[in-house]
């Protein structure tokens, strides 16, 4: 089961939805890993006839199942970074009437939402659905470096090495949660590491 019920939190924490088919001239699906399951759940032959699926495998084996949906365009790539030029091109070619569906990790949904809004898709019209890993994309508020796939709290910044507390405070602009030094007052006094949702 790839669905996870996020606990209620502060207002800045994003709330993800459930994909549903919408009327549109074209349909752009962007998913990573288990996010493929959300596409498989919502796909109809009619929807797929106008669909462009950009799928980021992250080591999973859903690609063949997605290909079997027979979308009008299909791309498979290993990572968001690898897929980004394809995503940018798809958005720059798009016309009004495009529907955007994003599913998978919070990191993908946050970054892809930014790409789509910058291309002119209003935030309210972008559909999202969380599936798979609950790991977070974190920004260190001290060095500003991003650490991907953070599963524990606290964690060590992959750029500056500080011990960071995982906050629920989220930036849409950065598509990242905020990580704040946990032992600034008393260096070395670091709480025991646990899962973010433990």
């Amino acid at each position, binding site marked *: 089961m790839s669905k996870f019920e996020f606990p209620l939190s502060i207002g800045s924490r994003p709330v993800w939805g459930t994909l549903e088919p*919408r*009327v*549109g*001239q074209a349909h752009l699906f962007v998913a990573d890993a288990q996010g493929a399951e959300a596409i498989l759940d919502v796909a109809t032959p009619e929807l797929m006839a106008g669909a462009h699926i950009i799928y980021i495998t992250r080591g999973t084996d859903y690609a063949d199942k997605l290909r079997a949906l027979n979308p009008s365009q299909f791309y498979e790539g290993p990572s968001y970074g690898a897929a980004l030029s394809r995503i940018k091109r798809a*958005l720059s070619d*798009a*016309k*009004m*009437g*495009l*529907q955007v569906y994003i599913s998978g990790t919070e990191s993908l949904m946050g970054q892809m939402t930014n790409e789509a809004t910058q*291309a*002119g*898709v*209003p935030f*309210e*019209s972008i559909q999202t659905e969380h599936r798979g890993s609950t790991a977070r994309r974190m920004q260190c508020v001290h060095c500003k470096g991003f650490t991907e796939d953070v599963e524990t709290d606290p964690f060590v910044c992959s750029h500056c090495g500080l011990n960071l507390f995982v906050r629920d405070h989220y930036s849409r602009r950065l598509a990242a949660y905020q990580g704040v030094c946990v032992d600034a007052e008393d260096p070395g006094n670091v709480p025991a590491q646990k899962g973010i949702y433990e």
Partner: protein
Amino acid sequence: MSAPQKAKAGAEKIAVTVSAVVPVTEYVTRFEFTRTDGADFPPFSGGAHTVVSMEDGDRTRLNPYSLMSDPTDLSHYAISVRREDNGRGGSAFMHSQVAPGDAMTITCPVNLFGLDWRAKKHIFFAGGIGITPFLAMIGQLEQTNGNWELHYAARTAENAAYADMLLEKFPTKVHVYYSGQGVRIPLESLLTGQPLGTHAYVCGPAGLIELLRDTAKGLGWPDSNVHSEEFLAPAPGAPFEVRLCKSDKSVTVGEHESLLEAMEREGVDAPFLCRGGSCGQCETNVVSADGDFIHRDHWLDDDDRASGKKIMPCVSRFIGTTLELDR
């Protein structure tokens, strides 16, 4: 907790002098104002309107009109008024009673129909006198070489206010359609293939607004990329009684006046801004009601209406035995 109440209902007022009255078409006349104190007007953005006070005998008429002058020129404000011979008399008053040199009062501008600056492109749809807010928007966009186009429907060339000026200044951006010649704005083809991030704006008759919204929705346009403005005039209806709890007054709303106007007539300082069912300022809580509401505004949603707990007194009415309002 309720929002802080202003000292006086409506936007701040400005004393003006009518500086020009210019016939534009058979039905449309432009009124230009300068400030009586000689100062510049407050800055405004394209799409803003002002509420004009008309002293018509013992009656004060308050009508909203879009500002159509160039937002970069604050030495004067201009509105264009279409004469509605079957209307409530405000436009007829403007056409027949107002002359250059007259002293009038207008409100500071309020914008409920502004440009969305996230747009990659702005596409305007005007029907008839609905052209006026776009004249100011175009003035504003031209300052920054903005990406816009206008599709303007009018009955005939003689009725198309400002069409000649627009076509001469912006021949590649302005498209005019004459329904008298059977030509309609081809909404579906115009809304197809627009670049991502295009915003559509429509001002004109209710039918045009509804058709544009439906067409856009059917093509998958997000609601937030479609903007419309339609000021409603209060419709006449059967007189009804209303009890105003806070003011401790009972008022009879006449056939040809709105609930808001009846409250003002009785000296109740009820809040308002647009007086056309759009802005939401006059929203009033219903204490009790035995009867049916005639909601005509663009503000309350279906849940509000179903609850029977709210009414917009600028355009909506009531039919029934008792109505008590929290005003």
